Structure formats: structure tokens, C-alpha cells
């Protein structure tokens, strides 16, 4: 018999590594807190980006669709949460209603946008998604008159935190003798969500749907001839990615307590895409690495550049913000130059690359 090699469940193969990883993940918020809650917040953002990047990975890495407006779905989720749980309209729905609603709304937008455009060539999809992202942002910026829906560029403040009964994620409280600050609580919530999206990514990859995605990436015409309804299968990936974006947006709004159009610029979409590609498209550990690195890099530069300039020149020669972005841009260029398949590509991508250069 030639059945695919019998695999032990993932956790049985890697139990030691997983145990170490779990310990490290548990320790992070407490170690980070030693340097102040700001560091916990940075860790939270890293994990939120892991979540977003893995959501986008389904679209870009698995289905091979270039989405340059992913942040639009993130924005839809964030504003859905902000509008339904803040004094802006005086509506205060609980998070377990809004998060699924935000996900469904983002999914609906994904389907509306994807259904007519997914039959187009890849690059057209890129520009359409990019345009969609801009449309959403422009509406958010301007829908404060004549009816004030989004409060324009000021954004929406005083958004409710996630709350379960009396347990609010924004306040410090003590559970089983451990004192947890607000950001630390969100940390664990985000880790749980990240694990969810990792499991979804892993299981999809190795399924009937995952095979169909890979087949489409390899040869779309042959995939059609095999009876795969390529448009629907692509739409599925697009809608799933959108839903994850919607959930991430909701959590973002709750965690920050504040949303404004500024957080949903094209640069944000590009950063998330860069995380996926730079890490190693379609490869879960690679994408996680990309997300963590690209969140950490600007922060590290923020804390690194100013003191170095001060020490070297005694004053700020170059605006640190633009130097930070400069290094970010250079990093993208250099990684792509020397590791075109990403920092940590799957063996499959390495093969594809070898094939392409044959």
C-alpha cells in the first residue's frame, strides 16, 4: 500500500519543543512587564500581527492571491466593534456578539469584493484590493458629515474593553494568586486566538481544500480540468482571510479603546503582506517569524537609533522616525535579495524557487 506516510499527531512528534514554547509564551508577559507595561503592549501587537499575518497567509500563501488591501477587513472589524461598543452611538453590545458580527461583516465585504474580481488575473486583483482598502479608509475619514457615523479623522474613543461578566480585560486583577495587568490579560487572549489561527492554518494546509489551493497555485488550468471550481475555492480563501482580519480588528479596537482611520493605511496592508512574504509565504513558522520580526524591528530601532545618534553626534542628525522607516525598507529589499523565498521558507517554496531558476 502506498498511503501517505502515517503521521503521528503533531503534538506527539514535537512534545518537548511545544512544552518549551508554552513555557516561554507563559513567561513573556511577566518578563516584559519588568521593563514596563509598554513592552507587554509591544508583545501584544506582535501576537496580533501573527494573527493577522496568518489570516493573510491563507489568501496569499495558500491560495496564491495577492491582496494589497487586507487592512480594509481589519478596519471593518475594528469599526464594527467601535461603533457597537462605545458611547459614540451609546450602544454597548457584549464582545461575543460583536466579534462574530465583525468577522461576518468583513467576510461579507470579502465576498462582495472577491466574487467579481477573483476571475481576473492576479495583478488586477492586487490593484482592486488596494483600491478597496483606500475606499474604506477614505470613507472612514469622511463619514462624519452630514451624519456622523465614523467621527472622521478624530476616530472613536472610549471603546469598551472585552468584558466577561465582571471580569474586564482592561483592569488589573488577581487570579489564583497571580496579579495580571490589563495588557497581560489581552496577551493571553491574543495567544489563544493565535493558536486558533495556527491550528486552522495547519489543518487547512493538509486537507482537501488545501490541496485544491496548492493545485490552483501550481496550474490553474489543470486544476479546473480536475473539476475544481477555482473561483469558489479562491473566494473561500479570500473570505476566510477577511473574517480573520475582522476578528483581529475587533480585538484591536477593544484593546486600544480607540480607533481612527490612521491605523488602517495602505502602509499597514503592506506591512502585513511583507510579514507573510518576508517570513516565508505559506509556511506557518516562517510567517510567525516574519510577523514577530517586523513588529519588533521598528521598536528595536526606536529604542536603538536615538541613543546611538546621541552618543555618536551628540545630537539628532536625522529624524529617527524616517531613519526607522528607511531601515525597514532596506531590510525588505535586502531580505528579498538574499533570501527570495523568505527567511524561513517551506521546503515546497524552496522547490518552487529551484524550479523557477532551472
Amino acid at each position: 500500500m502506498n498511503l501517505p506516510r502515517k503521521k503521528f499527531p503533531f503534538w506527539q512528534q514535537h512534545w518537548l519543543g511545544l512544552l518549551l514554547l508554552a513555557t516561554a509564551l507563559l513567561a513573556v508577559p511577566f518578563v516584559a512587564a519588568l521593563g514596563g507595561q509598554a513592552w507587554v503592549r509591544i508583545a501584544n501587537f506582535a501576537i496580533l500581527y501573527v494573527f493577522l499575518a496568518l489570516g493573510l497567509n491563507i489568501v496569499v500563501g495558500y491560495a496564491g492571491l495577492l491582496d494589497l488591501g487586507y487592512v480594509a477587513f481589519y478596519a471593518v472589524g475594528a469599526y464594527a466593534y467601535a461603533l457597537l461598543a462605545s458611547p459614540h452611538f451609546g450602544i454597548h453590545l457584549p464582545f461575543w456578539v460583536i466579534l462574530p458580527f465583525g468577522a461576518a461583516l468583513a467576510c461579507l465585504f470579502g465576498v462582495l469584493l472577491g466574487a467579481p474580481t477573483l476571475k481576473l488575473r492576479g495583478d488586477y486583483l492586487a490593484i482592486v484590493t488596494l483600491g478597496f482598502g483606500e475606499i474604506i479608509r477614505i470613507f472612514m475619514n469622511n463619514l462624519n458629515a452630514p451624519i456622523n457615523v465614523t467621527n472622521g479623522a478624530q476616530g472613536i474613543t472610549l471603546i469598551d474593553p472585552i468584558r466577561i461578566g465582571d471580569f474586564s480585560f482592561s483592569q488589573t486583577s488577581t487570579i489564583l494568586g497571580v496579579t495580571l495587568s490589563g495588557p497581560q490579560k489581552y496577551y493571553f487572549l491574543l495567544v489563544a486566538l493565535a493558536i486558533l489561527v495556527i491550528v486552522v492554518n495547519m489543518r487547512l494546509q493538509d486537507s482537501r481544500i488545501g490541496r485544491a489551493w496548492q493545485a490552483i497555485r501550481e496550474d490553474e488550468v489543470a486544476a479546473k480540468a480536475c473539476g475544481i471550481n477555482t473561483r469558489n475555492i479562491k473566494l473561500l480563501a479570500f473570505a476566510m482571510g477577511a473574517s480573520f482580519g475582522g476578528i483581529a480588528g475587533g480585538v484591536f479596537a477593544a484593546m486600544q479603546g480607540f480607533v481612527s482611520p490612521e491605523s488602517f493605511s495602505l502602509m499597514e496592508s503592506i506591512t502585513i503582506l511583507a510579514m507573510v512574504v518576508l517570513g516565508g509565504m505559506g509556511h506557518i513558522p516562517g510567517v510567525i517569524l516574519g510577523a514577530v520580526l517586523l513588529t519588533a524591528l521598528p521598536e528595536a530601532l526606536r529604542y536603538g537609533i536615538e541613543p546611538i545618534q546621541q552618543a555618536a553626534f551628540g545630537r539628532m542628525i536625522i529624524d529617527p522616525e524616517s531613519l526607522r522607516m528607511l531601515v525597514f525598507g532596506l531590510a525588505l529589499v535586502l531580505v528579498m535579495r538574499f533570501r527570495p523565498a523568505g527567511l524561513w521558507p517551506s521546503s515546497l517554496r524552496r522547490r518552487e524557487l529551484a524550479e523557477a531558476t532551472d
Partner: protein
Amino acid sequence: MDTLLQQLINGLTLGAVYALVALGYTMVYGIIGLINFAHGEVVMIGTMVAFTVIVSLAGSGMPPLLILGIGLLVAVLACMILGWALERVAYRPLRHAPRLTPLITAIGMSIVLQNVAMIIWGRNYITFPPMINKEIFEVGGASFTNVQVAIVCLAALVMLGLTYLVQRTRIGMAMRATAQNPHVALLMGVDINRVIAMAFIIGSALGALAGCMVGSYYEIAHYQMGFMLGLKAFTAAVLGGIGNMAGAMAGGLLLGIIEALGAGYIGDLTGDFLGSHYQDIFAFVVLIIVLMFRPSGLFGERTGDRA
């Protein structure tokens, strides 16, 4: 009625600029299939270089038109070098990499150029010195300036020249051949590297020209100006059918006119619900609608799947 004519004139001016920038996108895309995200930044650098040259020559007593001409020439040369360097350093090593790799590189280069510009020229708006004495003409209730006339005429001339270059010269023929099928072109003795470099160089020169036009028209420049301009121009290229040069010209003009008309009439159309700050969405809304019905753009060839 006078609004209509006025918006058409403004749209034509804007459209001429879009068309020039769109050509840069479409030439590169047509030949190597890359969305050169950094092209908008090349346009911005062109504006900035022209600005610096003009400002430093302003006190020299030369005639203003000559100064403008020198500024333009220096900007065009600088951008040609920049475009050539971009291709040589950033894109050429990635020619056989996965499709998304050069795209991320392009995005990275765009970020780099933007921030280099910000370090050099600062983060504030720069007033672009007006070198042409503005004259205003009035026709049928609409007014336009000699600057607008110059922009449209110059753009038309350059596009004619480019069409000649591509249709009639050896390098133009090599470019068309490479766009059709790079492998065969290579076998026929076409120097692919040279052709690709030429596409970048010509595109960047057109971009620099467009940048100077924008600077002279709005009399303002900013390190982020290339972004939206590039985005719109790329939209125009897709609108016309990407890879198709005539399409890029037509798409640019069309987009400029649609935008101007849209901005002029959106208030009336929506009962003042949406105001003119929605101007920027027209490009994208039109793009999405066009692609739904004409998946290859307005003038693109229909390319079916091949078995």
C-alpha cells in the same frame, strides 16, 4: 455648463500627468510583469530635484524659462539614473525569483526613497517656485492658465515621440518583441537586459517630466506626493489595459477627466451627502467597475487560458 467645461479642462491637465506616469508603470509591467511600486517615488524625486535646481538658480539672473528648462533637464537625467539603478541593483537579481519577491522589493524601495527624500527635503510642504508668469485665458465661462496649456501640449508631444520610438526604432522593436515573448526575443539576439533597462530609464524620464508638471501646476511638493499620484497612475494603466502603451495614455486622460467631473458633481449627485473630499475614491470605484465588465482593461487584449 461652465462647470462642465471647467472640470473637463482641469481633468485634461491632470489626465496628461497621469498618462505620463502610467506609461512608466505599463512599460515595465509589459516587459517584466512587475508592478514597480517605487515609480511614484521616482516621480516625487523628479519634482524635488527640479525644485532644488530651480531654487538654487533663482538668484542667478538667468531668464525664468531657462531655469525651468535646466531644472527639468536635471530632474529628467537624475530620474533616468535612478530608474536605471533601481533596475540594476534591486530588480535584476530577482528576475527568476517567485512573483511576489520583486513586488516586496519594489515596496521596500518605495519606502526607502520616500524616507531618503524626507531626510533631504524635510517633512513639510515645499513651495514650488513659479517660473512661468501665469496668464489666465477665459473660454465660454471656463478659465485655464498657460501652465495648463503647456502641460497638455508637452505631454502630447512626448507621447507622440514615445510612440514613434516604440513603433519605428530598433530599440522600440526590441522592446515590443521582449514584451511579446522574452525567450524568443533572446533567441533572436535581443539584448534583454538592455531592453529592460531602457524601459526603466524611459519610464523614469517620463515620470520626472510628470513630476515637474505637477510641481508647476500645484506649485507645491511633498515627500509623500508620489504615493497617491503613483497609485492613481497605476490605476490608469490598469484601466487602459496594463502593458498596453496606448491604453496607458487613454487610461490616464480618462481617469483625470473622471476624477475632475466626479469631484465637481458628487455633491449634486448625492444630494450633498458626499462632498468633494471623496475625489480620491473615483479612481478606484471606476477601476473596480471597469474590471468587472472588461477584465483586461478598456483597451487590453482578452487573454484566455491556453491549454
